């Protein structure tokens, strides 16, 4: 991120006493750095490789009628949402604490870019990981769907449910990164939170419970997104019945983004601690 400092000066941000709109500059630099130093492509390559193996195996099962086409697409969409969200969260969890650990946060904070713009720029950059995984997942969903109806459902689930879930967790990862004093702590907490959010929906006790189970799944943004994918793609439930599964990811995306921006005011170097 240190490269953002000269650009900020070049664009006239330095020396300007009034805070300027700096998030496009930060976002552009963060995106450039993410996708030019091999980090973004490494995550995307791992995701693509896994999706290819899963897609091939699911198609082979569907080919001998062990899986319905909707089930195989549901699997791919669910895995894409989970892994795409994970990738974006890992990048965002590194955003602030990584700068702090590499001693580059100071240089970033002395630029006249408002701190919330720094956070917004970093948030947008981390979100591009989800966009990239979405671009990889869409062809798989289209090829495996084998019909316009399933394709439409798969694409809509990825765009709506996956994007909301990714936005929520990317912002959460950034908020954790703002608070954590070491990169390792930030990544560990972020992964633990993601696991804690994703696990309940997979537990048989929660899935089979008719009282508390549905409430827990709807309240949890990750499990709500995964359940929506299953409901629409595998169980062929109508979209009109899925509103409850969109609310918590949407609310979480807004709340966590606001929290991350709010925490930007308290950005500290951490060296003194």
């Amino acid at each position: 991120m240190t490269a953002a400092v000269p650009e900020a000066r070049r664009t006239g941000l330095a020396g300007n006493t009034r805070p300027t709109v700096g998030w496009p500059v930060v976002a552009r630099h963060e995106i450039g750095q993410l996708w030019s130093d091999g980090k973004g492509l490494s995550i995307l390559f791992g995701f693509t490789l896994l999706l290819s193996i899963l897609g091939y195996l699911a198609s082979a099962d569907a080919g001998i009628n062990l899986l319905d086409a909707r089930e195989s697409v549901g699997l791919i969409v669910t895995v894409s949402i989970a892994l795409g969200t994970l990738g974006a969260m890992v990048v965002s969890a590194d955003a602030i604490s990584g700068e702090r650990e590499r001693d580059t946060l100071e240089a970033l904070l002395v630029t006249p870019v408002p701190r919330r713009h720094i956070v917004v720029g970093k948030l947008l950059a981390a979100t591009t990981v989800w966009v990239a995984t979405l671009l990889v997942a869409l062809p798989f969903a289209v090829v495996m769907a084998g019909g316009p109806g399933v394709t439409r459902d798969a694409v809509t689930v990825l765009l709506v449910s996956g994007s909301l879930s990714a936005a929520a967790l990317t912002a959460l990862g950034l908020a954790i990164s703002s608070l954590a004093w070491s990169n390792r702590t930030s990544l560990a907490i972020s992964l633990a939170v993601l696991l804690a959010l994703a696990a309940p929906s997979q537990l048989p006790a929660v899935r089979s419970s008719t009282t508390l189970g549905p409430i827990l799944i709807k309240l949890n943004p990750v499990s709500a997104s995964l359940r929506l994918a299953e409901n629409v793609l595998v169980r062929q439930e109508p979209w009109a019945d899925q509103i409850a599964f969109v609310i918590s990811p949407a609310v979480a995306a807004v709340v966590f983004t606001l929290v991350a921006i709010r925490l930007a005011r308290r950005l500290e170097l951490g060296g003194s601690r």
Partner: protein
Amino acid sequence: MRRRAGSLLWVLLCVAVLLLLALPGRTSATTAVPQQGDTTLGDVTVVVEPMSSSVVLGDDLALQITVANGGAAATDPMVLHLDILDRNNEGSVDPEDWTSTLTRPIAEIPAGGSTNVSWTVQPISAGTFIAYAVVVKPSGTGLTASNLAEVMVEDRRSLNPGNILPLAIGAPLVVGGALALQLGLGRRSGRDGRRTVGVEGSTGGSST
């Protein structure tokens, strides 16, 4: 006199042993119990058709099961159960993988009547299997088993299931290629940078 008494003792011992052997044992007594009251089931026959069939992996196979009542009285309601055995592995397969329903109710069958049940199964692996069915009365302990129907499942392999292969190979190749190119370029620019620094350093050194 003593010799006659010894012979008599031997004869008595032999008679006692014979009597003990002739007495009915507990085992035979208990096995006789379930057959009481199951006479109706004894007149029931079950036939699975086709006796021998061949199917390609992934395709459906319809088994026709006929439950007939050869008795003089109507049967009680019964339960029909299907099972599958893997002949090659000499073990059993999980029949639930082949069909979602393992048991089906059979209503009362009148005397001399029969009931046909069509049971569609879908093999999940290649090999030679044995399918058979049994009927049991929920209230009783006896059962009637069918013939053994042989099911040969031919393997089906496709290298490109659902036309996914080009995408499954192409997508990682494109992303991996981009990553390799990026890493290669980064390494090259790093080398060039070091070389430039080295040249500048040596130039600077000579000038001073």
